[in-house]
């Protein structure tokens, strides 16, 4: 519950998995993956379709329980913890096909985020002035503050993506995992999202991004991990990754 939120601990990895495996029926989606993501960086996770990236994401965030192996967040184990506990420990995430609460207003969508579960806080009015201001701050930040009172289902897909991001930020996570932030949005919006990621990273937030848009990955990420068949096959700076023969092989399917 009381997450360690000191930004000084740069020596440890932000997020690390050890020998993580997840099998669905006969299909091994994640196959003994050991991966490190760096604190304070924009980390990329790429790989061909079906390489296990989203399953990996879901195992890390507790949505799926891995069959074996462990997940460590800042050197503390979070393996098999419930998704809400992992979220309160400081890891926020978005979903592959963006998910918002359709029949709640944009503002209410943001007020859902729970950071503290004490009874006193929970019975306080949701429309606490301080919380409203904090929410408006994030809405301004992603650029949809004019939509505060609109129902989320009335927003366009791009706007919903921004809303989802604002909702995640409302939980004040230290680490943000984005599953295909550029999927299905137009180039201008990709630009806005990239800019936001850069700014937030400069403010100390660590990112782990699954993305197919190579232009975005290469321009945004400091460190890239390449997945193929459920395990990492390469990692390093984007320039090096781009030239790695194993990566080319995985993508071109030689």
């Amino acid at each position, binding site marked *: 519950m009381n997450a360690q939120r000191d930004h000084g601990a740069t020596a440890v990895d932000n997020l690390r998995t050890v020998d993580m495996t997840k099998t669905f029926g006969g299909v091994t989606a994640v196959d003994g993956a050991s991966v490190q993501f760096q604190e304070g960086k924009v980390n990329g996770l790429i790989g061909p379709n079906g390489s296990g990236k989203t399953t990996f994401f879901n195992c890390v965030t507790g949505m799926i329980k891995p069959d074996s192996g462990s997940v460590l967040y800042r050197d503390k184990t979070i393996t098999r913890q419930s998704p809400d506990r992992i979220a309160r420990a400081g890891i926020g995430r978005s979903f592959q096909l963006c998910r918002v609460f359709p029949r709640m207003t944009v503002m209410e969508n943001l007020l859902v985020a729970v950071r503290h579960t004490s009874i006193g806080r929970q019975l*306080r009015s949701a429309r606490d002035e301080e919380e409203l201001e904090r929410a408006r701050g994030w809405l301004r930040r992603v*650029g949809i503050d004019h939509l505060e009172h609109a129902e989320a289902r009335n927003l366009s897909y791009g706007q919903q993506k921004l809303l989802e991001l604002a909702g995640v930020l409302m939980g004040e996570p230290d680490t943000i995992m984005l599953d295909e932030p550029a999927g299905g949005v137009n180039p201008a919006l990709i630009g806005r999202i990239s800019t936001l990621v850069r700014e937030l990273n400069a403010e100390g937030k660590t990112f782990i991004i699954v993305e197919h848009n190579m232009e975005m990955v290469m321009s945004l990420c400091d460190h890239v991990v390449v997945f193929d068949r459920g395990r990492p096959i390469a990692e390093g700076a984007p320039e090096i990754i781009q030239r790695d023969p194993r990566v080319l092989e995985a993508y071109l399917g030689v």
Partner: protein
Amino acid sequence: MPSASNPGPVITETIVVAPSAPVRPSWSKWVRITLLVVGAALVLAFPTIAPNPYILSAGVVILNYAVLSTGWNFMGGFTGYISLGHAAYFGLGAYGTALLIRNFALPSFLAWFVAALLVAIIAIPVGIAALRVRGASFVIVSIAFVLILLLVFQSWRDVTGGSEGLTVPRPFPDLLRPEHHRVFYYLFAALLAVALAVWWIIDRSKFGTALKSIREDEDKSQSLGVPTTQYKLIAYVLSAVFVSFGGGLYALWFGDLDPIFQFSILIGSYMVLMALLGGVRNLFGPLLGAVVVGSALEYFKLEFGDTQFHLIATGILLGVVVLFMPDGIIPAVKALFTRSSNQASIREVTAGELLEENRARSAETVPPRRPDASGEETP
């Protein structure tokens, strides 16, 4: 890739231009207050204006339904988990109260409280088990629970009196029938007021926002830090406790319990029907539903006598509501008044415009593509 000379297909983004003011018109607050005062006055004055004890007793039944349905709505309304088996807690509250008075000689209203406490303790393990499943599976589990209880209370003759039923000692033995109805009318009204107050407090709280997000998308809610398992359980137990209070008070009022009525699917369905009819997202939805369905049931019973026609008539009523007011009466009426004044307008914005907007927003950081292309995109 669209380049500067050839912008490619114009990508449009549908932008919602939302009402910038809160969605309610300014007079709405006064309408609400007036409705609330008039409604409360009507409820309080009913025993005085009721022409005969029969109508008064119908009023007691309707308030009882309102308590049950509002109690059900702590679970169904907030979290969207539809329980068809909440009659289980209606029966347990009633039998608990009766048995504590008969076998342990507790004073009537102490027995009523202790029964609700016991129901809360029972609801915890049942809730933990039932809430592991969602959607249709949860509905089935909830029905299974009430059917099991029905069998137990029918068969366990030594304790429950089996199918012969159980008489409940009267809390006010010296009162005449009409006075008895009047006292219980106000007791039910007070219980309803407490249930509504608690629902209102939760509705506006952070806890309530979290519960409503479970109704919308449970996994998403959990990913935002909402301890969904615990919150659902709290809502479930609260819901069971209020329904149990409704059942216990029914036992004290009616004075005679029969397992087939106490643990019937029908009672559970009425709670759901009333809440859906009025609107599960609204504080007064279940109350309004109880007034409509309760009055209709009593009227049809008078009209068709001792047949099952009143059930058919109720079924038709439900069909009409689901067809024309899927969200319930309250939202439908609200929409009538707010439609003209507040509708979000939608317009198309081109990628070029959006890019322009982007540039304005983040002048200090470099966007991935040089924005000078946008000048040529707009004719």
